[in-house]
């Protein structure tokens, strides 16, 4: 058996990312999404009470929310002001589901562009005539989607850490972010979601004719995240690090299963009959 053609596979990754850079419709959402979710919204939530003033908020308003969260999950000091509690609560906890939208959307946008884009731009047949094996092509296409998704997730996390600590420091008086749930969130659940987003898009890609069709279908995975946000806001459901690890395990299993199924669907002979 010959060695894997990594040079060829990296050439596909580089070529696809060059094309992404030149397609505003593809890269713009990947920039806007983290900027809104990780910079603009947190700033509004953190700075708004400070701008409105102390009188606008008292402890009675945040106490019911705080009471619903399992003890020890949110590191709120006993003598914290209502504003500090609000900042810690929103930035450390309420924003967690928002963060997960990023790896999911980035991986499904890139997978849609990388796979269905080849069909849409009439370049798929040429690619299938290259000496890369089905496995090499498939792995290259998954790397195109996963690597940027993980990079953007990590960069967003770093930016978010800087933004919330800087914006909240005057009120909280210390570096309060990240809290323990964020480690499994960023390094376990977020990669799992990017794999699942890729898996769903891959499955749809063999049948989708356009980038938009594939991308929209891949976005369906946002629904469970929205449900999580709703559950948190109403106090019905909270996730600690243990539960996050468990959910992550399920999402990993789902994502890897979808990718395995996808590798059968995206075989050369299947793809060429749809060119």
């Amino acid at each position: 058996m010959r060695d894997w053609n990594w040079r060829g596979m990296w050439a596909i990754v580089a070529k696809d990312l060059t094309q992404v850079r030149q397609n505003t419709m593809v890269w713009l959402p990947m920039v806007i999404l983290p900027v809104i979710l990780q910079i603009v919204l947190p700033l509004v939530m953190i700075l708004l009470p400070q701008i409105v003033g102390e009188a606008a908020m008292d402890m009675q308003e945040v106490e019911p929310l705080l009471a619903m969260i399992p003890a020890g999950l949110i590191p709120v000091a006993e003598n914290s002001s209502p504003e500090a509690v609000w900042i810690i609560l929103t930035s450390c906890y309420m924003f967690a589901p928002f963060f997960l939208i990023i790896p999911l959307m980035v991986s499904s946008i890139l997978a849609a562009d990388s796979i269905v884009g080849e069909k849409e731009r009439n370049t798929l047949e040429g690619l299938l005539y290259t000496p890369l094996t089905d496995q090499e092509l498939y792995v290259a296409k998954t790397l195109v989607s996963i690597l940027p998704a993980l990079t953007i997730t990590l960069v967003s996390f770093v930016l978010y850490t800087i933004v919330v600590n800087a914006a909240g420091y005057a009120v909280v008086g210390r570096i309060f972010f990240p809290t323990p749930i964020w480690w499994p969130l960023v390094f376990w659940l977020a990669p799992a979601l990017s794999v699942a987003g890729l898996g769903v898009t891959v499955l749809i890609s063999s049948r989708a004719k356009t980038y938009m069709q594939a991308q929209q279908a891949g976005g369906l995975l946002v629904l469970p995240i929205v449900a999580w946000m709703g559950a948190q806001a109403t106090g019905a459901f909270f996730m600690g690090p243990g539960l996050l690890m468990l959910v992550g395990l399920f999402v990993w299993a789902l994502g890897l299963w979808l990718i395995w199924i996808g590798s059968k669907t995206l075989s050369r002979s299947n793809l060429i009959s749809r060119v």
Partner: protein
Amino acid sequence: MDTVIVTKGLSRQFGENWAVRDLNLSVARGQVFGFLGPNGAGKTTTVRLLNGLLQPSEGAASVLGMDPATDGAQIRARAGVLTENPSLYEALTARENLRFVGHVYGVPEKVLPGRIDALLTRFGLQDRADDKTGAYSRGMKQRLAIARALLHDPEILFLDEPTSGLDPAASRDVQDMVQELAQRHGHTIFMCTHNLVEAEKLCDLVGVIHRGSLRAIGSPAQLARELWRNTLIEIDLNGPPDDSVRQAAQNQRGVVGMEIEGDLLVVEVSDIEVTPSLVQTIVAAGGQIYGVRKRDHGLEDVYFALDNLEKGNTHPESKANA
């Protein structure tokens, strides 16, 4: 002779339909093989089968001594393909397109830039090498696609409609290049085409496929000989022949048919050896001859004769003999 493509009973079925059925052919190294047939006849499916993009439903093939069903990647590494659609990345420049292909095909980094420059120059694209190919004309895209197919110095080239959509000058450039590749560089070329004039000019061997089955294979002259046992002789009389000339020619031994086409008397003879005595007979009957030549059946005649047979019409000779 070293055979590089062999198929034995190669077949591929999609649902109930046979796209290719019981295909038997062999192409020798350095030959230009023309694969002729209408749209949907099975030409592109055959190329896909030979490159391991599709698995055969029945039969087998061998390309460069390997089985495309199991060694597709190794075959593709040694073959260059020009698909009907140029398949270029239009957001990339010509140079970027070629670099990408060079990396995928494993062209060593040391030689890649030089080879890219040489091909861009050879195909007249050096001045536009750093422009995005989306801005190229159809002819430029086709030339770049051919350059791309040649970048890794393949032993076999599969060309699917290489001159489709090109203007006459660009078509001639591509045809010259195909001839040069075969004659000077010894490439084996498997060319799918609708263009019968092009096939006749370029191909040593042609195969005619219809509804997935190979109807005929051979050189254009061989195919003509198989279809037409008799020979056509054109006699220029500088005007319509009179009755005595016609009658004399008709009575000549070995003459099996005759037609008048303007100033020409077109005589069908069973043997070319009849020609000198036929000429003497016409002269003796008072005919004034300005020229005599053998009329060859071109590939176009062959193709349409086969097409007529396919449609259940009569053999071309039976009409002349009537």
